[in-house]
């Protein structure tokens, strides 16, 4: 008997053996192309990718890459990525050690027959309505990738939904220590 796999918080949206790489890069032209090109030519699969300026420093950006560790050994992916001259630091987070969040935005038509159902879905998901007019709602959810999966699935029942997700960002989970 082996110990059961820990619950990874998500099933449908990313491969089970996914890893999160939090990559600090120089904020220079073409850096994203270098990363994307490396993944393409080495046959590493990217599940999602998010880029933003890092910690208020214009010199660096942080790229959060969810990689499919089935497509290549993680050691290879990290080793090759580290060779890119513009890559400054790589943090490798196993899903169990990562605090992951993602943003979902959706716009959908509402009318008298579905309004109650939509409000129900939004409330259950912990999402909020951030824009509305006579015929449509815009809904936002910032949550775990699993919660975003759930909401996306719940919205499938409605017609003409326009939906976008950002891809996840992640930080290491805090270590639980005894209170001082």
């Amino acid at each position, binding site marked *: 008997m082996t110990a059961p796999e820990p619950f990874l918080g998500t099933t449908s949206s990313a491969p089970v053996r996914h890893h999160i790489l939090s990559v600090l890069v120089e904020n220079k032209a073409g850096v994203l*192309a270098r990363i994307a090109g490396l993944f393409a030519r080495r046959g590493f699969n990217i599940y999602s990718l998010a880029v933003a300026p890092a910690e208020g420093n214009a010199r660096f950006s942080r790229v959060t890459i969810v990689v499919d560790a089935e497509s290549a050994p993680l050691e290879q992916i990290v080793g090759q990525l580290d*060779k890119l001259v513009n890559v400054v630091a790589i943090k490798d987070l196993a899903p169990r050690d990562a605090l992951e969040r993602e943003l979902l935005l959706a716009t959908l038509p509402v009318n008298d027959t579905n309004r109650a159902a939509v409000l129900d879905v939004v409330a259950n998901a912990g999402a909020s309505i951030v824009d509305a007019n006579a015929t449509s709602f815009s809904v936002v959810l910032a949550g775990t990738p699993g919660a975003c999966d759930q909401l996306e699935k719940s919205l499938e029942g409605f017609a003409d939904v326009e939906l976008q997700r950002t891809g996840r960002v992640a930080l290491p989970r805090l270590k639980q220590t005894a209170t001082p």
Partner: protein
Amino acid sequence: MQLTGAQALIKSLEQEGVDTIFGLPGGAILPVYDPILDSSIRHILVRHEQGAGHMAEGYALATGRPGVAMVTSGPGATNIVTPIANAHMDSTPLVVITGQVATASIGSDAFQECDITGITMGITKHNFLIQSAHEIPRAVAAAFHLATTGRPGPVLIDLPKDISQSMMEWWYPTTIEELDLPGYRPEIPLDDDAVALAVALIGASERPVLYVGGGTLKSKAHKELLAFAERTKMPVVTTLMARGAFPDSHEQHLGMPGMHGMYSAVTAIQKADLLISLGARFDDRVTGQVSSFAAGAKVIHVDIDRAEFNKVRQADVALQTNVARALVAFDAANATPQNLDVWWKEIRTWQERYPLVYDEPSVDGPLRPQHVIKAIAEKAAPGTIVTAGVGQHQMWASQFWDFEEPGTWVNSGGAGTMGFGVPAAIGAKVGRPDRTVWCIDGDGCFQMTAQELVTARAEGIPIKVAILNNAYLGMVRQWQEMFYEERYSEVYLSAELPDYVKWAESMGCVGLRARTLQEMHDVIEQANQINDVPVVIDFRTDSSEKVFPMVASGASNDDILVHPSQRGENS
């Protein structure tokens, strides 16, 4: 001091100690060609940009210093893509400067525009698109730093025409920090735990093999290797990229491993209990079928590039450092294997049973290519540098020439670039004018880059080229004979067309031809007398000759095929 960007570029190259640029001008790089007239740097005008790249590689491989090439934008830049890819595969330090259309025109499909930084992203260690003239010194200094440290490789600088024409206040970086490379850490502290583990594995070993790769030459570790090998008495194999890292005449040297390696080198690896990989990367041409490669061996993998660890073969100890430093650490810990007498006795049996052989040449020809190489080698001055193209002649040159020191074997390993030999020989001769340089070439390879002999003659670079003319793309022919039921598809080239002697003469070289044994000896003698102009010899060799030993592609190294005359015995 105010300089144009073009002047700053040339001055930066001077700062880096560059003595030679291989290149060819054109529109976008034109401003940079003007200050060359006032520079101490020698410019070698090539006839095709691919030649410039391979010359720079030959220069780098023969001297250990970075090679420099300069070309214009668009087709000038794309023509040098093959040498860049070649240098990337073989970790050769190269700095390539390409002209680019003016900044304002980038992205507009301007005349001779191409996205060369995009094209070469995957085949350079790094590349730069210069944004201002002020950046030029930093980019050049960074390019040389990147090309020559850590795992060496090609670095490209793309310079838009308006920037080379604009003014800048001259400066030059004096510290690594000024290079602005926050993500680049070529050296990491030595992992003492890994060293201790390696020392323990060595201590337990009864059948070790030193698997020496190109990284040993790149880190200039040949002296440390000799000392370590002699102290520990371990057998040594040198890969195609490491020929010359350990003297071929040394009794502990088993020769080259791999697809066309020596039987004893291949078999010693297969039977080893410990493989110490020194700057080698478990290339498929060495391992054959990976699952049966050195199946009983523990692996100590020494490499400066961590991405090589566990890429092909799981290492028991991975030590990220340069080869010299690892060997010094092993010596300091007095890492010593068990008594190797039994192991050596076994190895000597293989060496005696399966030496390199070839069929006796007949007096009237055709010549045996292996015999031609041996005959040239016998009459060659000590320290002669040998370059090769890619194919049968390359394997025979590696097998039958004895390399005694680093920088004497210049070839295209990882990329397998046909046509490498002639321009690489020119570059090697420019870098080491004191040495004789022979290019052992094939007729197919020669036809790809022969026009650079015009460059050699015009610039006074007296190389010697031996064409082993078997009228075929010989290695392809060998595979079609062995694996495609002798169905020869598109491999015949003709021995007479072109007329290599006339072609050589038209390029200002001495052209010679040999069909018989006597003629072979005579033309080699003649070629050795000529030291002012390039010499080209058309050696008419046997088309049916094949390279042995051979491990078929993807087959296990246990199934090595020896020369037909050695088969039929129980091994």
